[in-house]
């Protein structure tokens, strides 16, 4: 953290987006996390992504639970809606809000403790139901707020700061999300914004459950030799399968690539995901192949990053429930309470 607030002074060449906002307008309050925390980089990536997709701040709803990661919605897009839920219960609160008000853009920010330990059930069901949301897990493999115990995503054999070895098997939230039917799944690293920002942009544009697992080193408790979530380890074992570019709906598309190199995927809202292959055999439209690839690489100790799976034609929870187009919280009494005549009609049909 810092003692002074970030001055509002900015670079003279700072750009404005289509709404007339600068990137700085998407910032939040000054972070109180430890200096160097990966989470702050993720907040910066979210700020950049919201700025780039011309998101009106009042259309964003931020949700979080408890933990270092769950503090971060305070540090970006201050004018957005927000709800800080009970530990591990963020997915339910988000689902409820989404049901009531389907026209907002939902962003859940959680951590490995909040999502893989206390909130694992909540995580699973929100994904399974296909809630239209972007769900970012700021994954540092450690309980930083309680001073460095292993979390459920710590790798087997990873060492704690004082040398203890983790004996438990890790939960891989990406594989879990794939198994549970998530329709947009990515993994990235807080230290690589060129990869992370487009992943967040694509997720915000995606209709359905979009899960991004972001490795976010804990500088205070999990950035030492022997940890598998440190800056050095992640950099060394990071294996990106593709590079993503996201083109917002209505933005002019310019083709400047050799054919065959790129795969373009058009999502529901008209946004285009432009994928540049890095790993030749990897196909992000094949869920089962993705699961196999991830499992294989995990045993080799590699961390697979990039856009791992996407179903651009996904259905979300509202499609399943067949809700009306008008958000439920905007329906008036006259829409919700049938008149006496309607009751009579039903009754007469039963006579």
């Amino acid at each position, binding site marked *: *953290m*810092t*003692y*002074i*607030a*970030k*001055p*509002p*002074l*900015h*670079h*003279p*060449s*700072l750009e404005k987006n289509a709404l007339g906002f600068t990137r*700085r307008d998407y910032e939040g309050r000054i972070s109180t996390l*430890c*200096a*160097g*925390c*990966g989470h*702050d*980089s993720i*907040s*910066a990536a979210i700020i950049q992504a919201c700025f780039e997709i011309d998101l009106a701040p009042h259309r964003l709803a931020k949700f979080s639970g408890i933990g270092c990661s769950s503090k971060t919605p305070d540090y970006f897009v201050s004018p957005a809606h927000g709800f800080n839920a009970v530990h591990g219960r963020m997915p339910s609160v988000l689902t409820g809000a989404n049901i009531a008000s389907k026209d907002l853009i939902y962003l859940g920010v959680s951590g490995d403790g909040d999502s893989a330990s206390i909130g694992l059930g909540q995580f699973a069901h929100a994904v399974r139901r296909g809630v239209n949301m972007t769900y970012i897990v700021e994954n540092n493999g450690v309980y930083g707020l309680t001073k460095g115990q292993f979390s459920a995503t710590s790798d087997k054999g990873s060492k704690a700061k004082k040398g203890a070895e983790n004996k438990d098997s890790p939960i891989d939230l990406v594989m879990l999300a794939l198994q549970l039917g998530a329709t947009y799944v990515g993994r990235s690293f*807080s*230290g690589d*914004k060129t990869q992370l920002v487009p992943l967040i942009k694509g997720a915000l544009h995606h209709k359905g459950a979009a899960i991004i697992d972001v490795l976010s*080193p804990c*500088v*205070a408790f999990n*950035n030492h030799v022997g940890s598998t979530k440190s*800056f*050095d380890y992640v*950099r060394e074992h990071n294996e990106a399968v593709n590079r993503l570019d996201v083109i917002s709906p209505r933005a002019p598309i310019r083709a400047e690539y050799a054919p065959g190199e790129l795969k373009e995927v058009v999502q529901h809202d008209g946004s285009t995901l432009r994928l540049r292959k890095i790993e030749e055999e990897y196909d992000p439209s094949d869920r089962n192949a993705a699961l196999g690839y991830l499992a294989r690489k995990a045993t080799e100790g590699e961390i697979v990053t990039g856009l791992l799976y996407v179903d651009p034609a996904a259905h979300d929870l509202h499609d399943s429930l067949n809700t009306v187009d008008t958000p439920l919280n905007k329906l008036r009494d006259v829409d919700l309470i049938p008149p006496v005549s309607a009751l009579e009609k039903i009754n007469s049909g039963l006579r």
Partner: protein
Amino acid sequence: MKPTDIRNPDYFHKVVDCQWACPAHTPVPEYIRLIAAKRYTDAYLINWKSNVFPGILGRTCDRPCEPACRRGRVEEEPVAICRLKRVAADNKEDSVAALMPAPAAKKNGKRVACIGAGPASLTVARDLLAIGYEVHIFDGDAKAGGMVRTQIPRFRLPESVIDEEVGYITRLEPVLHLGERVDSLKAFLAQGWDAVFVGTGAPRGRDLKLPGQAECAANIHIGIDWLSNVSFEHIHTIGKRVIVLGGGNTAMDCCRTSRRLGGEDVKVIVRSGFDEMKASPWEKEDAMHEGIPILNFLNPREFTHENGKLTGVWFTKMHWVEEGGKKKLVPSGEPDVHYECDDVLMAVGQENAFPWIERDLGMTFDKWDMPVVDQVTMQSSIANVFFGGDAAFGPKNIIWAVAHGHEAAVSIDLLLTGEDVKQRPGPGVTIASTKMGIHEWAYDNDPSLDHRFRVPQVEPEVALRNVKVEVEKGFDPLLGFKEARRCLNCDVQTVFAADLCIECDACVDICPMDCITFTENGEETALREHLKAPALNLTQDLYIADGLKTGRIMAKDEDVCLHCGLCAERCPTGAWDMQQFYLEMTHAGCSSAPKAKPAPQPVGAK
């Protein structure tokens, strides 16, 4: 790009834009912090050591520091550096003299003569007297001060300030020869001085010599001579309608003085456009504030007169044309215009004049008949004759005269101690961390968002009644404090230690000005364009560091850095540190110190 060598004092010196731009290299941010801390005496002494005339310069300096000030690039206006200097001068303790050097207890037996008693000569005298030289000062006027006393009107600079600051030099006991004009350098050199410094200024005002001028000469005056006559109270009035010819600072002083001596309809008429005028923007503003119109693109052609009395001036209208890619000012062809007036003041330039230097003396003169003077050593082609101030390279300003004086004094001392005048002593440099705690620094790192404060002025009705009433009241201590807080502390440097960096991006994310980028190395032009914010100000350096684990480089664009220290506060490993860089020019007497000693290695760097 190659990694930046921060051990070269020039690198961080350049980051302190104001100090780098100042001819005397005054450590500006340090004295501004002292003003904010109410340590006016200390702030004054830093100035006095470096620029010799803080009270005078705090009112009259041409302020090359202010256009250079980083604040002017960060928001709209630079810090009012010049007027803050005056705050230090106005509020210092009376006992400040006790903190200045006393007359040298032991003389070294060397005799140095300064011709002219202006700012350049007085600087030479101060530097040399304190280290034991016997210095004689010659001037044709009855009081020391030179153009500071004769040409700057009292409403900008009260005589008491001149007396005080000239007094800090005369108390070092130079031998004053006032009222003694030197008419022959040959005869003067024959008196056997060990060294002679010529600081005679640019004493001759240019005369246009237009048709009709001879017939009404009594109403046509040379600006600087007229100003000096007003200063010495030989002139007390001027006609009701006055035309001032010329667009420099002397023209501004002439018109504003005329307003105070009875001029009611005073105009400044300039050959060029408003923007090309030589006068400083604030001087033009002050003149217009006093109801003086500035008319542009009018070239004086002829004086009109009746019965030996001036009646007006004919002007030819001018405009710019492009000729061979060059802009030229030529007559526009429109009909000439006539302006009526009672008096004309000509302030169309000044020249050096050396009729008193014999050309058979062995001194080399250039094609403009000016003595050849070395830009660094101030030495003429006669080894023990030095020049400085306007006498050296034509009209500049007081702060340049002071800078010349310091350099000439260094040269004289080197020459007379048998050393090579070309071997200049390096500056004294210290750099030390300002870290006081986890998030505490030895300076106020929270940048003020205030805009530039205006200096309070006396009401125009009062000011215009008396030529001796000082127009500017100066900042009071509270306004001075607020203005001082606008300083960005550019001398507190962001020092980066690549071996400590874990590339977590914390500094990149927090930097309010997007100064920092971690990227692949490349050639400078390409690198400048793909930084987090494009570094398009080519006068500002990129700070490059290599040796990072990923093989990338850290590139910091110094251009608009706020020196807020947030990068260092957010850095988990202390790879960024805020270190105060203090650079002092070496003056005469320290020439036996090691030459150009390298800056101490920054703390934290390996």
